[in-house]
């Protein structure tokens, strides 16, 4: 790493990517074993893979952080990072898009067809006579049995408010950082992942409630599938985002960020806003409508 600041930065060989690839492989391999009921190899491999990945994250990002603080990164490198993060978020948008697409398709087209509307008249007549559709539904065979939905104006509303305020807190922290006001930044920054964790906690409670009292499960036909997969993947993203925010908070506390250079902070903030926006979509399309 002998380059001077300002030069184009070509990092020399790094061992982290290959460690990441191996970790990812072992993780996935373990996951596949586990799903196929091969135990204890499955869970063990999964855990080993996860451990390697965590080790890798500390190592890789630690190295990047050190290099960044040494001022090795030019504005151009910074811009590459920014583009990378933006396109990564775009790919995440498309991933959620697949599940939203599944929701819209099932709800807007498939269920009405099964119920005999338009194009589905014959299907309803010959295969599912008597099925009237509607939403929520667990299909003609009422798979998973009678269930109730989560009322939007309870916990989900609170969760919406929590996430919205967490977007505000992270923005305040960002402004404080740009003003160079560390003392104002830190509390707002720490508040953000706390709110995130609160969100996850409430969602976990909501899930438990759904399983124990509402009989709403993954198995509850297409409604259960779309409900849990959409909110579940979102919850996973909130969890990851919270972890990232803690790391950022720690680094901010250690004084890693300057007024001008704090890409890591911004990347995580973007990610957090993205998670927030996805939630608004969920709140609207999964809970309210």
């Amino acid at each position: 790493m002998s380059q001077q600041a300002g030069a184009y930065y070509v990092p020399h060989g790094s061992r982290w990517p290959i460690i990441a690839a191996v970790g990812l492989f072992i993780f996935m391999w373990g996951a596949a074993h586990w799903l196929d009921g091969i135990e204890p190899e499955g869970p063990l491999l999964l855990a080993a893979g996860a451990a390697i990945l965590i080790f890798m994250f500390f190592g890789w990002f630690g190295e990047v952080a050190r290099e960044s603080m040494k001022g090795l990164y030019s504005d151009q490198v910074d811009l590459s990072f920014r583009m990378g993060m933006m396109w990564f978020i775009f790919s995440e948008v498309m991933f959620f898009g697949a599940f939203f697409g599944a929701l819209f398709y099932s709800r807007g087209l498939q269920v009405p067809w099964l119920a005999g509307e338009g194009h589905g008249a014959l299907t309803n007549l010959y295969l599912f006579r008597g099925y009237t559709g509607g939403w929520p539904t667990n299909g003609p065979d009422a798979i998973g049995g009678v269930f109730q939905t989560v009322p939007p104006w309870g916990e989900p509303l609170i969760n919406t408010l929590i996430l919205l305020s967490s977007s505000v807190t992270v923005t305040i922290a960002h402004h404080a950082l740009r003003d160079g006001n560390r003392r104002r930044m830190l509390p707002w920054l720490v508040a953000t992942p706390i709110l995130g964790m609160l969100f996850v906690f409430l969602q976990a409670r909501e899930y438990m409630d759904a399983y124990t009292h509402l009989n709403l499960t993954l198995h509850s036909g297409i409604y259960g599938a779309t409900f849990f997969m959409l909110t579940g993947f979102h919850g996973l993203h909130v969890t990851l985002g919270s972890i990232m925010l803690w790391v950022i908070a720690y680094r901010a506390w250690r004084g890693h960020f300057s007024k001008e250079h704090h890409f890591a902070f911004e990347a995580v903030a973007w990610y957090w806003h993205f998670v927030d926006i996805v939630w608004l979509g969920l709140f609207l399309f999964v809970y309210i409508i």
Partner: protein
Amino acid sequence: MTQPVIPLAQPTAFRRAVRALLALAGALLAVPALANPEHPSPWQLNLTRGDSGLSHDVWDLHMAVFYVCIGIGVVVYGAMVYALIRFRKSKGAKPAGFTHNTTLEVVWTVIPVLILIGLAYPATHLLVYENNTNGSQLTVKVTGIQWMWRYDYLSYLGQPVNRVGFLSKLAEDSNVARQADSGVSPWSVVSAHGVHDYLLDVTHPLVVPTHTKIQFLITAADVIHGFWVPALGWQADAIPGQIHDAWGKFDTPGTYRGQCAQLCGQDHAYMPIVIKAVPRAEFQQWLVDQENRSRMDAISRTAEVTGAPAAPQG
């Protein structure tokens, strides 16, 4: 009914090669003549014209787009081959420097659009016609099952049909021959009419009347299958949890063969479809026989049920 049979001894490689050349030579002139509407023929080059107005329309569209492609091909390849011959460095060609020609570029954008419109127009008409099952006189429900078909006759000439339905599997002689190491040559599997029907013959063909608009209600019991009899002019996926309706017609009595077209597991290659089109009077008689038989079956079945537990009905 069935056409005269060309005896097909297992030909030598040489004879096959000669036939290949002949077939290719005759191809462009006699393209339609090679295709038998009932079943595939050796060295067949082109789509079957099928056996109804509908399938003929499909065939016409196919030929139209084919000739359009040939036409465009002649122009594009012609220009290209000319360039390849004419503008060689070894022939002393000096490179020109042009990089644009707006007129030309507009022309070769607009003309393809016009050609496409010309193709889309008949295609649209045909599609709408093909998807209109109104006025069908016979309704058959077709269910794909791993690895056989079930046919249920629902109504004929507006009257419901009383419990006529059966399973249709790969015929036994094919089934024996198809096993690895069976020692039976696929060429030795021949129908009563002398057709080489290896893998294209079933235990119970679907019997339908000629000159009748037949509505097929196609679905599946387990995985996706594909109902494809080329003579009808179309195929339709058989999808679990869905009724896919389509219609078809036969003008000439005959035995029309097809196959499952959607990968459906290990025996996907072994679930043929055979439709026997018979004159209407014959069909009427057949249907009555079937109804009677099923009534008899029902009676004996009730007897069984009261006596001992019935064997599961296939």
